[in-house]
């Protein structure tokens, strides 16, 4: 009697992870630049904290973005680096408290330095094409209490189609000095009516996820106040 012949199942293409190359993920660094000055006390800071949690949860739920988006958290005033860059899956939002003035100029300059250094670190350690254009995302409810014109110049110099050092976005919640914001930010700042910070953070996480993946990040726009309508 002949033994039944064992058939190897037909396979065309890699059938498990060992046949795929292993490469580090590209990184998209994002600095959250958050106003925690005295005027944010009460509902605003509560909304901000909830928004931060939603932001982390949304990103962590995305299998690719959780590894690719890196978050650093800077609060002001005083200017404080709350969290240095970590991937979204490892980001633990701190509970922020309000109090202090609004040294926005210094905070913006710190953010710009942070992304510049991070880009070098990523390129050196992961590879020259492993960094995606970083984001700086400013949220404020007031106006700067420090010198801010130098910061504005640096933003203009870095965020443009030639230099493309970073993409800078500004959101003003109730009470924000939109005029100053529009001088700092090349992109028109968005005025957030009410405190829909959670929606804003969900939009941000979605946009970052998009940028962190296949799309080239050129044309993302904020469309206020409906955070769900973004053209890219």
């Amino acid at each position, binding site marked *: 009697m002949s033994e039944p012949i064992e058939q190897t199942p037909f396979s065309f293409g890699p059938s498990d992870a060992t046949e795929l190359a292993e490469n580090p993920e590209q990184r998209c660094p994002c600095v959250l630049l958050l106003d925690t000055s005295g005027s944010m006390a009460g509902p605003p800071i509560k909304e901000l904290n909830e928004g931060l949690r939603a932001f982390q949860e949304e990103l962590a739920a995305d299998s690719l973005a959780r590894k690719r988006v890196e978050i650093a958290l800077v609060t002001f005033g005083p200017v404080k680096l709350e969290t240095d860059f970590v991937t979204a899956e490892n980001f633990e939002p701190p509970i922020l408290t309000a109090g202090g003035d609004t040294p926005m100029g210094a905070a913006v300059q710190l953010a710009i330095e942070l992304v510049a250094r991070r880009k070098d670190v990523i390129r050196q350690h992961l590879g020259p094409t492993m960094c995606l254009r970083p984001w700086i995302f400013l949220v404020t409810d007031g106006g700067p209490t420090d010198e801010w014109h130098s910061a504005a110049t640096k933003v203009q110099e870095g965020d443009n189609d030639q230099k493309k050092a970073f993409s800078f976005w500004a959101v003003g919640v109730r009470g924000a000095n939109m005029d100053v914001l529009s001088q700092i930010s090349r992109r028109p700042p968005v005025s957030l009516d009410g405190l829909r910070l959670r929606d804003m953070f969900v939009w941000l996480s979605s946009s970052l996820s998009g940028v962190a*993946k296949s799309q080239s990040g050129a044309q993302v726009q904020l469309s206020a106040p409906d955070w769900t309508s973004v053209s890219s």
Partner: protein
Amino acid sequence: MKFPTWAFTNASAIGTSHQRRGEECQDSSLVVAPRGCPEHLGNPIIAAVADGAGTARYAADGSSTAIRVLKEEICRILTSPSGVLTESGLKSAVLMAANHVDGLALQRGHASREYASTLICVVLMHDHAWHIQVGDGAAVFGYGENRVVSYWPAKGEYGNETFFITDENFQEQLHIHRLDQLPDDVTLFTDGLEGIALNLATQEAHLPFYESFYRVLSQREAGYQLDLENHLKEWLQSDLVNSRTDDDKSLVLISRTRPSRQSIS
């Protein structure tokens, strides 16, 4: 003189990011054996892949038009009495494809950049090959146990930036290279598969990736392998692949066939 013959297949599949947004696949691919070539050319093969830019609204039209026009022009040259392909002839063919895409945009009242696309093309002759490339993705050439990536995916400053045939100065990014040794197999893919087919740190092809295809394809008879196309489509949309990329994916596989066996008398 016995000319080499080829077994080949290809597929493109939509990426999960486009699927989620109800958008179409912006990748295009083809592999053909043009008919009507002068005999002395043997059995040439034209293969191409193209990846429409994510931010370009009509990128799917851009990529499909680019490879179609390029293929048609190369076919026209190959089926002409001399059938001679030269670097300048290929450059003209690429320009023609780029102009065609621009013309299409113009006709429709759109900006060319809405049709932005990368472009990779390989032409296999009987004793040499041509490789054309604008942008990222790659063509990987198999020689014995080696797999050679002679032109690394071209990227801009950031990892998700590349060059397109609709760029004003795309000719500066146009790579045309004659391979003086005919490969045993050729693989073309767009950037969606770079992360699993290439070792980015060492800038080398990841050999097991190709082996898993060519141990099957190299055993086939000449011609387009329709059944393998179905397997390929399935594989491109598998969880294994989609866990590593959410981009559109294209893959062209071409293998020299084994020498034909003599029939036993």
